């Protein structure tokens, strides 16, 4: 994979964005995610209102890929229901594994489609999925009725 495809403007700009990167006042769910092999870490914070993700933010330290992916993910899940967020996560993971390729499904990922090419860089896949993996953990057992 060429570097130009990896470090696109979408990714480099999102990696430095402060938009969703802050400590929330009173999040209802807090989940830490770590890549033990490289030390990337994020703390995902969610405020759930019924089954709707009313607010979300993260703090973290990691490579451009992991931080950009978390930022774009929060863009996507804000205002979505837990079920919708889980579906997006499934689509993202599927895209990274190369299993989801149809355009309609990919369209739902909006800017997160920028990570499609990373499936060809096995050593960086774990960076791209860190945020989404942490989201899945955070939403475990949250079936929308809580």
């Amino acid at each position, binding site marked *: 994979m060429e570097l130009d495809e990896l*470090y696109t*403007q979408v990714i480099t700009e999102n990696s430095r964005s402060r938009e969703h990167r802050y400590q929330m006042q009173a999040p209802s769910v807090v989940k830490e995610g770590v890549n033990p092999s490289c*030390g990337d870490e994020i703390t995902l914070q969610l405020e759930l209102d019924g089954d709707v993700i009313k607010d979300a933010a993260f703090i973290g330290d990691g490579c451009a890929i992991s931080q950009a992916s978390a930022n774009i993910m929060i863009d996507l899940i804000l205002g979505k229901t837990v079920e919708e967020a889980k579906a997006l996560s499934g689509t993202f993971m599927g895209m990274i594994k190369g299993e989801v390729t149809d355009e309609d499904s990919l369209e739902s990922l909006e800017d997160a489609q920028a990570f499609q090419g990373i499936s060809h*860089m096995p050593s960086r896949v774990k960076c791209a999925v860190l945020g989404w993996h942490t989201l899945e953990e955070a939403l475990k057992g949250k079936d929308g009725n809580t």
Partner: protein
Amino acid sequence: MTDAEIRSLFPELMNERDGRRMVYLDSAATSQRPSEVIEAVGSFYANDNANPHRGTYLEAEKATEVYEEARNRTASFIGAESRDVIFTRNTSEAMNLLAYTWGAENVGAGDRVVITIMEHHSNLLPWQRLCRMKGAELVYLYLNDSFEITDSEIEEKINADTKLVAFTHVSNVLGVMPPVGKIISRAKETGAVTVMDCAQSVPHMKVDVNELGADFIAFSGHKMFAPFGIGALWGRDELLESMPPFLSGGDMIEYVREQDATWAPLPQKFEAGTQDPGAAAGLLAAISFMERIGMDVIAQRERDVYDYALSRLSELDHVEVYGPADRERFGAIPFNVKDVHPHDTATVLSADRVCVRAGHHCAQPLLKSMGLNSCCRISFSVYNSREDVDLLCDSLKKVRGRLGL
């Protein structure tokens, strides 16, 4: 020998991809192997293949001969007796062997094990686990702002309760050497046993166990041109004799009865099960290679490249080098490109075939103490040249731009 001549001895370094050679700056992780090591492993399996220490036919005798010759050469390489050199898979296994034998028998509740904050996890976790199992205390020798372990730190921490002091000869991250002589003499004063992790020194400088003065040393073959899967533990004869076996099984026994057993003499007591004579053949060839090139030549070449790299990196804006600037250092240089995560730096460099390591380098407590989560690291071996450093620096200049900075 010229840079190009030395490089040409290593097949991996001659592979061109997209018309570019590999600039290998990760020898602290594992070295490249010269042709003669690769051929020695192939030759063992083609000509001498049998299980050593068993069988009376020609090939079995030859396998035994190769395996024991590798031990003899490893021993003489470090100034030791053959019976005190135990083959392990690597340094981690050697440290586990010590923790589960000498450590389990001699460290108890309220005792102290002292290590340095610079340790690789291989010389940290076996002691951490031992201390947790026994209710002993794991105490760290910390670095001051100049990356030194002070005399008072050594005198304070290594006390009468200290049963064992384990420390690295050369840090795999900072490339600095702790005050070996002072630590060992303080340990002797208080009656503690000393263990040295020589994984980052034996490949790069002449190491003699008699001059060093430690009670145990361990190192890995794969960092010194030998195959993966073979390393060595050396220990003082009387200590090795006093220790129970670590792993038990084939080939390490004298007599086995239904309810008890007695053990083989050193070194077989610590080598249970079929060993890896193919890797031993490679280690033998690796030591021959190092002796032919000469440890002084290896050390001098690496010194030149190391100092050149330090000075070139310090000229680069946006590159932050960690560690002391005013002391002799060996092997490894840690650094970061400002505002860029080390994994992104390593990825950009890899597009130019420049191979560096990024991460915590199996030394998380050290990185934490430096206020870092991770960093890039370059490390050298005999095949590196000033040209490698120039190619690294050319590539480093592109990093921030690639990340949109």
